């Protein structure tokens, strides 16, 4: 009996017991759809996170004081430290910036009572090379701005639109209020931040860049800085550089092995996130695998029932010339068709479900063709595994006994 013929016969047999077939498929449907959903959301998140880090330069590192009660005046990172590190690691560093950040507010130009939250970052003139920066108009902060502590600002486009209602605001004044102190900056550049694939939680503060020196004065810092960010040259081992830099700092501050400094690499964070995603995916994958196994057992059970129910039919088929192989293939294909259809339905539900979930929790979903192929193959294999025993049982029936079966 040829293959297509067998599938047709199997479909006919399944159609006769529509409800039962559907219930049998349920385990497979649940298993496959959850695999597809989880993998789609996992891949989507991973892709988004990775491209997010690409935007900020995957090979950049941060050095900062560990958040702790035990940090004293003499432990604080200073501009001197920054310059020393810059010199020592000149060969490894592509671009660098000290960072002093604080939050402030500004008001809408035509609605004075409406505050706009600001994320004010005092940065160096190389900062635009440390991160992926896209200037729309004007310029970035210059060395001159830093040296002479100019009150200039580079702002993001969204802020321009929100505050002034237009994009072209070069030369306009931006007043930033912090603790009731207001400082006014001249806008010298407008940039567009890279599009984030990951959702922002709540209203995002708008980003403003001003010279580090100016920020230091606003915060009344003598020489302290908050962060140092370095983007590294190609093929430089980020973790290694972090270790060496911390060594230099500890020697300089005479607090060796006291854990006053901390370094993070974007790569390291990326790795952690990817690791977490991997664990999450494999846990849900294991659950899905269990439900597939349960689904397989369900199929085996229903196939055994079916073989018993159709013993006479098997006898008839054998009496008119079906060989063992014909019967085996017939029941095996029936099992595969159940699991295969279950797999297809599960895949469809999985795709729809991942889109819905993605819509609500604002995480991107990407369903790869590979996942679909693997899911289909897997459900087919479940069908074969589950169908083998019942089909073999059917094939081995003696024609006379089967015909006599009541």
């Amino acid at each position, binding site marked *: *009996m*040829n293959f297509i*013929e067998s599938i047709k016969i199997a479909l*006919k047999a399944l159609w*006769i017991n529509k409800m039962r077939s559907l219930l049998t498929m349920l385990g497979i449907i649940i298993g496959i759809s959850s695999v597809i959903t989880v993998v789609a959301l996992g891949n989507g998140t991973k892709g988004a996170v990775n491209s997010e880090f690409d935007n900020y330069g995957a090979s950049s590192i941060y050095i900062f004081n560990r958040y702790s009660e035990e940090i004293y005046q003499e432990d604080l990172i200073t501009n001197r430290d920054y310059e020393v590190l810059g010199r020592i690691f000149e060969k490894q560093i592509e671009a660098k910036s000290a960072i002093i950040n604080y939050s402030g507010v500004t008001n809408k130009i035509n609605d004075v009572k409406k505050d706009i939250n600001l994320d004010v970052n005092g940065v160096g003139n190389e900062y635009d090379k440390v991160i992926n920066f896209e200037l729309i108009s004007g310029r970035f902060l210059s060395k001159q701005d830093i040296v002479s502590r100019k009150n200039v600002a580079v702002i993001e486009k969204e802020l321009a639109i929100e505050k002034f209602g237009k994009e072209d605001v070069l030369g306009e004044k931006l007043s930033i209020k912090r603790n009731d102190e207001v400082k006014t900056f001249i806008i010298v550049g407008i940039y567009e931040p890279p599009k984030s694939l990951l959702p922002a939680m709540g209203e995002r503060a708008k980003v403003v860049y001003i010279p580090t020196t100016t920020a230091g004065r606003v915060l009344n810092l003598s020489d302290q800085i908050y962060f140092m960010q370095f983007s590294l040259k190609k093929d430089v081992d980020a973790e290694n550089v972090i270790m060496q830099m911390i060594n230099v700092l500890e020697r300089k501050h005479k607090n060796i092995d006291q854990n006053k400094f901390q370094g993070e690499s974007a790569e390291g964070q990326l790795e952690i996130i990817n690791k977490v995603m991997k664990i999450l995916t494999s846990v849900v994958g294991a659950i899905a695998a269990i439900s597939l196994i349960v689904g397989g057992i369900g199929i085996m059970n229903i196939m055994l029932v079916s073989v018993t129910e159709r013993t*006479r*039919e098997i*006898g*008839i*088929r*054998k*009496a*008119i*010339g*079906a*060989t*063992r*192989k*014909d019967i085996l293939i017939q029941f095996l294909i029936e099992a595969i068709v159940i699991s295969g259809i279950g797999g297809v339905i599960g895949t469809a539900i999985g795709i729809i479900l991942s889109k819905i979930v993605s819509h609500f929790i604002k995480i991107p979903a990407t369903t790869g063709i590979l996942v679909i192929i693997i899911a289909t193959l897997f459900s087919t294999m479940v069908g074969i595994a589950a169908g083998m025993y019942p089909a073999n049982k059917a094939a081995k029936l003696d*024609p*006379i006994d089967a*015909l006599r079966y009541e």
Partner: protein
Amino acid sequence: MIKLDKIWKVYDTGKIKVEALRGIDLEIKAGEFVSIVGASGSGKSTMMNILGCLDRPTNGKYKLNGNYIEGLDEDELARIRNKNVGFIFQTFNLVPRVTAFHNVELPLIYSRVKASERERRVTIALERVGLSDRMTHKPNELSGGQKQRVAIARALVNNPSIILADEPTGNLDSETTIEIMEIFKKLNASGATVIIVTHEMEIAAITNRQITFKDGKIISDKLNNCRNYEV
């Protein structure tokens, strides 16, 4: 074409052994029209199952179309059942829930005949039994006589050399019985060897040769003088 040599069939059900056939010697030539009669339990069905290669004798030799059945494996027997033998049962034994057409088509599917050729041959077979207008009916939508016609169409669709019918009219009324017997007569006339088990002497009388079973043995084997069957 059929040659039985001291065929024994013993059912061993544990406590007791039932000797259903006790040393049957029999020869049936191609084109014969034979009836087998005998009391209930005398071994007629057992005999038919062995003739149709559905069952194997416990002892003895069965030569069919020149081949000894003893030496054949399961698949070869399946092939013989498919190509050389057409079996018709008292209880029709149609595959439930599929159409008459598909039932008749099954032997052709198992002998890997192409779909277009299958359609042609199924159509012809159903025409021969006068059921062209019931092709898409399922067994539960057919009368007893119609079911048996479908079974006959299925038995003859692969042009077997032997037609075996175990009480084919046992579940049918007398009028339908006549119609079914007419079909067997025509089949025999067109060259097939037809062997029918029956309880009814009128039916046995239609055939050319009548074999009587008793307690697993043949007690009489005689030729009929070709009377016509009349109600």
